[in-house]
């Protein structure tokens, strides 16, 4: 990483930490801006469920005292930030005594796996298809087939998930209808388990890939078309370089750079989309965790899960940004 200019590094890190701070602060402020008192609402719900709760006012006061809601807001804020920095997200209220960190720790790897796997596929396929679309030497048939495969582009992954699940899960019964691995199986590092995870993850991943790769193909095609008009392309042809060599070294190498930037920008949308796909497939990841938390009206769990997903997305963006100078040597020269 010695090649990264200090300026670039500092700016990226600044954006990363500011993102975390803004997200954490938003999550702190939002419930306090809302009308009504969350604790009173919770006790009211208990009263509604149980019919009658003795001394409900005392309970409200007790909880307020316990959660420190009687302290001034800035004291609460400092304490909240301190807890976050230590990784203490509190308890999942509806599933006491599980902590939010525990539940998140179990769910996060699945989401990272699903999104990572899908990203790998759509980024490769999309860029390859885009390059082929723009390349002058591509067979005519391929140039007709590719746009046809892109019909689903820009549909949300959630809808693609519904359609895939119906066709391949319920009608044809080729793929499992829910979960990331068979019910009752214990996560372990055996070939059998890994295969079953791939089998269960295939449809959710495809739901993301099918609607996403066309976007990358279009972006790549746009870049390639621009590059074809550059002077160095004429030079490459005049030198008599092999077409494949020109495609790879001169065109794709250059066109992939803006695509990497675009990937960093799209991480947020991608994570949002996969949250919903997980809900459709009842996948064991963060999306399903948020969905159950919403149903159980577990604020603490909703906030904790959202915050960790935001941190993960910001981290992914940071990693892509830091890898960027490695593939684009020009960046490292800047500011030196």
């Amino acid at each position, binding site marked *: 990483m010695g090649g990264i200019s200090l300026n670039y590094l500092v700016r990226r890190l600044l*954006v990363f930490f500011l993102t975390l701070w803004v997200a954490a602060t938003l999550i702190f402020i939002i419930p306090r801006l809302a009308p009504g008192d969350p604790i009173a609402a919770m006790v009211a719900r208990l009263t509604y469920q149980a019919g009658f709760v003795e001394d409900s006012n005392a309970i409200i006061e007790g909880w307020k005292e316990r959660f420190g809601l009687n302290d001034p807001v800035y004291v609460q804020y400092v304490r909240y930030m301190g807890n976050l920095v230590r990784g203490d997200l509190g308890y999942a209220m509806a599933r006491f005594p599980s902590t939010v960190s525990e539940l998140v720790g179990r769910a996060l790897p699945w989401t990272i796996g699903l999104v990572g796997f899908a990203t790998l596929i759509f980024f490769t396929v999309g860029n390859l298809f885009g390059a082929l679309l723009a390349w002058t030497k591509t067979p005519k048939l391929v140039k007709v087939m590719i746009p046809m495969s892109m019909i689903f582009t*820009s549909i949300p992954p959630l809808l693609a998930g519904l359609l895939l699940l119906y066709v391949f899960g319920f009608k044809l019964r080729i793929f499992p209808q829910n979960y990331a691995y068979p019910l009752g199986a214990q996560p372990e590092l055996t070939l059998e388990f890994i295969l079953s995870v791939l089998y269960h993850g295939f449809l959710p991943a495809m739901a993301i890939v099918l609607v996403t790769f066309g976007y990358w193909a279009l972006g790549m095609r746009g870049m390639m078309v621009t590059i074809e008009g550059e002077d160095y392309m004429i030079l490459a042809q005049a030198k008599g370089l092999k077409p494949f060599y020109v495609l790879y070294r001169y065109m794709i190498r250059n066109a992939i750079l803006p695509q990497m930037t675009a990937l960093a*920008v799209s991480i947020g949308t991608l994570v*949002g989309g996969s949250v919903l796909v997980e809900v459709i497939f009842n996948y064991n990841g963060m999306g399903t965790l948020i969905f159950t938390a919403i149903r159980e009206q577990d604020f603490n769990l909703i906030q904790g899960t959202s915050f960790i997903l935001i941190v993960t997305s910001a981290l992914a963006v940071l990693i892509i940004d830091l890898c960027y100078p490695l593939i684009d040597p020009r960046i490292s020269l800047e500011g030196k």
Partner: protein
Amino acid sequence: MAEIDSTTVVFGGTKKAGAFNRFDNPWLNWKFLTGAGILGLIAALVFLGYQFWDTSLALTASSPLNLPPFGLEYQKGKDTILVGVPEHPLGTENSGRDMLALIIVGTPRTIGVGVIAASVGMVVGILLGFLAGFIGGWMDDVIRLATDITITIPSLLVLIVIQSVLGSVDLVTMALLISLFSWATPTRYIRAQVLTMRESGYVQMARLSGVPVRDIMFKEIMPNLLPYLAASYIGNMTGAIISAVGLEVLGFGPQRIPSLGVAIFFSIEAAALLRNMWWWWGIPTVILAIVFIALLLINLGLDEIANPRLRKAS
């Protein structure tokens, strides 16, 4: 001087002739027109639906339950077979809403969220994008930082946190919440375009002639950005509808008069997939898919209108 004059005349001449040649008009782009046509058709159908169909059937308990579309049979349980009736041509769902009424009411509501959120986002995006790109300096730094942060945060998650506190809200509120995030992408995009435009000859010329900055921004640069702005608007609208449908599917939509996403939420809640009631989730899904494909076509068309090189390649 004479040479420059003659080229200008020739160039101006061909351009004038081109305006009358309909094949030269970039706005007559088939992708753009198809997409716009589909949206127009949907609007017309919704309008006709409001005229000729009883939209109060979109409320609960207004129709018999779980009927399949007209002409089809639905095996409910072991020995009950429900048959579709002409009174409910697209069937009904679990709580007695007529599917046809539901989509007539739901489709414009869903698209409406996109229009509101995208419009607010666009106005803010144009203002900030021009400020950052044209004026620059510390303002550019601040706006760029805010944009980067907003884009990095997955908006759906913050919206989930907001909505889990607010509960289910009406669609205008939902649209405004979504627009808290929908300004960032247009801002970034417009800033980049303005930065390129700023150095171009005609802007330099206007600046040297002492045209006020505001006029350069909105009278000189803006008209040239129109196709880009339109493409950005459509992209933004797609994003906003995706967010709205996502929130609705999580159960945050208005529950009484449903939109398409809310219909999908109800169908998931009631295990419509397992019960083989495909029309319940399928019809809203297909309509949403058609809307998204239409928006994509418009966007692709606008890209080609804005970028002549893409036009040549296709």
